[in-house]
C-alpha cells in the first residue's frame, strides 16, 4: 500500500517536469563610447550683454551716493547686471565652469568687496567657446547714507578686450534675492562641490573667494543652431557689512569683478 502511495506521489511530482519546456535566459549590457573632440564646441558664439532695465535710475554719468560709513547694506541686488548669450551648432553636451571673483578696487587691488551672483537661465542652455567677461562698477559721492543702495554705475562689459556696452544704468534693489526661473530644465551645476540638477534651486555664488560652478548643458541634438541666454544678477555680499570694521566701500572708486567661463566639450 505504501509503494502504491509513493508511486502516485512520484507521478504527481514528475509529471509537471515533463509538461513544462525548459528555459533559460541571460542578459548582456552593451556599452560603448565616443570620445569628445574639439569639434564638439566649434561653431559657437558668445555674446555678453548689459541689460538696460525699466527700473534704472540716474542719468548719464551721475552716480548715486554711497555712504561708506553705513554698515547695514544687506541684500542689495543688481538685477540683470549682465547676460551671456550662447549660440552653437554643437550636437554634443558642453560643460561650462563659471568662476566669479569679488569686487576688486581697481586702484588698490588689495581692497576687495565680496559679491554675490545669482544667475537665471532664461531657457535651456548650450554654452560654448571660452571667453572672459568683466563688469566694472563705479561708486562715488561718499558720506551719504541710503537704505536702498541704489547706484547708477558706469558699467563696462568686455569680451576679449572689446567693449560690449558701457554707461549702462542699473538699479540695485533692496532685499532682492532672485532664484532660478521656473520652467528651466536640463541645467545642472555645482555649488561648493555639491552637484545640483534642479533648476529651481537658487544658484548663488558668493565671491568672498573664488566661486566655482560647473554646468552641464544639454546637447543640441539635430537642431542646426541652439541659442540661449543666462542672466546674471549681482550684489554686495551682505555679510560683508556685518563687520563694521570691514564694511567699507571706498567712494569714487572703480571696482571690478570678473566672470570667467571655461567651456569644454564632452
Amino acid at each position, binding site marked *: 500500500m505504501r509503494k502504491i502511495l509513493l508511486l502516485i506521489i512520484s507521478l504527481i511530482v514528475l509529471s509537471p517536469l515533463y509538461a513544462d519546456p*525548459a528555459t533559460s535566459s541571460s542578459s*548582456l*549590457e552593451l556599452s*560603448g563610447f565616443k570620445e569628445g573632440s574639439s569639434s564638439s564646441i566649434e561653431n559657437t558664439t558668445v555674446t555678453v550683454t548689459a541689460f538696460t532695465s525699466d527700473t534704472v535710475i540716474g542719468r548719464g554719468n551721475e552716480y548715486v551716493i554711497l555712504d561708506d560709513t553705513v554698515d547695514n547694506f544687506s541684500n542689495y541686488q543688481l538685477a540683470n547686471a549682465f547676460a551671456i548669450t550662447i549660440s552653437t551648432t554643437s550636437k554634443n*553636451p558642453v560643460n561650462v565652469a563659471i568662476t566669479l571673483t569679488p569686487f576688486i578696487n581697481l586702484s588698490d587691488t588689495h581692497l576687495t568687496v565680496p559679491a554675490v551672483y545669482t544667475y537665471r537661465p532664461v531657457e535651456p542652455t548650450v554654452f560654448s567657446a571660452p571667453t572672459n567677461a568683466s563688469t566694472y562698477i563705479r561708486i562715488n559721492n561718499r558720506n551719504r547714507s541710503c537704505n536702498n543702495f541704489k547706484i547708477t554705475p558706469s558699467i563696462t562689459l568686455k569680451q576679449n578686450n572689446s567693449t560690449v556696452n558701457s554707461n549702462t544704468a542699473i538699479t540695485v534693489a533692496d532685499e532682492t534675492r532672485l532664484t532660478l526661473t521656473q520652467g528651466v530644465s536640463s541645467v545642472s551645476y555645482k555649488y561648493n562641490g555639491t552637484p545640483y540638477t534642479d533648476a529651481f534651486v537658487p544658484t548663488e555664488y558668493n565671491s568672498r573667494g573664488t566661486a566655482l560652478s560647473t554646468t552641464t548643458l544639454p546637447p543640441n*541634438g539635430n537642431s542646426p543652431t541652439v541659442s540661449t541666454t543666462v542672466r546674471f544678477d549681482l550684489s554686495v555680499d551682505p555679510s560683508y557689512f556685518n563687520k563694521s570694521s570691514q564694511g567699507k566701500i571706498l567712494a569714487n572708486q572703480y571696482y571690478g569683478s570678473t566672470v570667467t567661463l571655461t567651456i569644454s566639450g564632452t
Partner: protein
Amino acid sequence: MRRILATLISLVICSTLYATTLLDSRLYAVNTHVDHYCLITLTAEEATLSSGMPFDITESRVQYNSANLAQGTGGWKIATWSIEANMNSFTLSFDAQPFTSAADESSKLGYYLIFKYNTDDYFTLHVPATGSAVTSANPAPPSAGPLTSMHKDLMFMFDESADTANAPSGAYLGSITITLTEGI
C-alpha cells in the same frame, strides 16, 4: 514512452528510497538527469584594444561592412556565450535594444549581432535604430545526444544606417537578452 520510462525509474528509486537516507540522495541525482534542463550564459568581454566593452563606436572594426556581414566575419567581439542542455532541439529568442546615447536618448544607432556557433556556422540579428528587435533562431546542435554544449563568440557591427561619425560624444548603452527554450 519517456514518461513511462521516467515513472518506472522513479518507481524503482522511490520504493527503495524509503529504506535509507543514502538512497534518498540517489533519487535527486537520477531526477536531475531525467529532467530536461538548459542553461545559457552570456559573458561580457572585458575591454581591450581589439575587443570587449566599452568600445569606441568610431573604431573601424565596428563599422558596417556588408561583405564581412555576409560571411559572418569581422565585427567586434563583445561577449562569449555558452549553452549547456540535454535537449536535441532548442530555440533561441532575442530581445535587443538599439545603442542609445546616454547624453541624448534621441540618438540611437542600429547594429547587427553575429552569433557564431559550431565551427563555421553563424546567424545574424539586426537591431534597428528605430526600435527593439525580437526574433528567434534554431541553431542546430553540433551533435544529437543527451547533452549539448555550445560556446562561441558574439560579435557586434553597426548597421548601414548608423552614422557614428556625427553621433554625439559620450557613453552609449544597450541591452541584449537571449532566452533558450526547449524545442522548435
